[in-house]
């Protein structure tokens, strides 16, 4: 973190608390769960829609009245919402990363220091936003142009890229979890501990 930044914020009348933020707890880790839930649901519902013929007997057994296109509706609106909310996730993440004061006497599970993890998570986060936006545009073209009349609204390659993105998201999220969990960034109790 840049120490000059704190002074500049003070000049603007913004006081930082023990957690290094001008508010009680970080927003990014909360917003992240919206991105995760929406994106995972988007891909899973498109997978469910694509394999609909196999699921029919089970849905009938459970008396769930559903048509195939409804799964694709959920897939589309979820990825659309994911791409809107993820801008806020990334904005909050960048702001909070600028104010981060990681504990320096520790290493993460993969033997990386706080700086490396922050760099990977920061750059990786913008990359993930790009992937989500690109996939939303791709999904929109499939829904409204290329496959508008196709009972299976998404291409297999789209689902494949979606699953790869989920794996990348898992790795990326694990790195982020290390920042709060191992390096105590923006964690009030961890930041108030005496240096060991």
């Amino acid at each position: 973190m840049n120490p000059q930044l704190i002074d500049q914020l003070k000049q603007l009348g913004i006081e930082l608390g023990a957690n290094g933020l001008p508010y009680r707890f970080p927003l990014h880790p909360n917003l992240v769960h919206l991105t995760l839930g929406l994106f995972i649901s988007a891909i899973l519902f498109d997978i469910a829609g694509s394999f609909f013929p196999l699921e029919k007997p089970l849905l009938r057994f459970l008396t769930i009245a559903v048509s195939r296109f409804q799964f694709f509706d959920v897939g589309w609106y979820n990825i659309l919402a994911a791409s809107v909310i993820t801008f806020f996730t990334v904005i909050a993440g960048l702001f909070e990363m600028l104010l981060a004061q990681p504990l320096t006497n520790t290493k993460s599970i993969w033997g990386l220091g706080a700086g490396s993890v922050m760099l990977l998570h920061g750059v990786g986060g913008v990359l993930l936003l790009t992937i989500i936006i690109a996939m939303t545009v791709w999904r929109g073209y499939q829904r409204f142009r290329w496959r508008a009349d196709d009972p299976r609204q998404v291409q297999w390659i789209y689902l494949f890229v979606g699953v790869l993105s989920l794996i990348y998201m898992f790795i990326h999220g694990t790195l982020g979890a290390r920042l709060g969990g191992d390096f105590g960034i923006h964690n009030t109790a961890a930041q108030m501990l005496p240096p060991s």
Partner: protein
Amino acid sequence: MLVASIAIFLAVIFGQLEAALAQAYPTAQAVLDYHTINGWTISVILVMITAWRSVLRLQNPLKLPVTYLGATTFLLILVCLQMYLGDLVYWVYGIHTAPVVEAIKKGLLR
């Protein structure tokens, strides 16, 4: 709602497991207790509303009564409260973060 009703039980089970393993100091324990009680309350209400929603869907998939929307809004408020309590447990009291767990082991935090 159907997916949420299934997912919440995973959330509650892991929450219970991790709460049981948490070495919470007294101030943190109080908030953790609120988080636990509110979590179970949400799971019960969520399952009830999902059952109600499935009946409504079978009756008329294009119509929802205002009372239903009121009930889900109430649930939404409980979920926001739960997020706030969970944030306090983790981000303020540092339960299950490595530095705080270490400090508790060394007896620095009571």
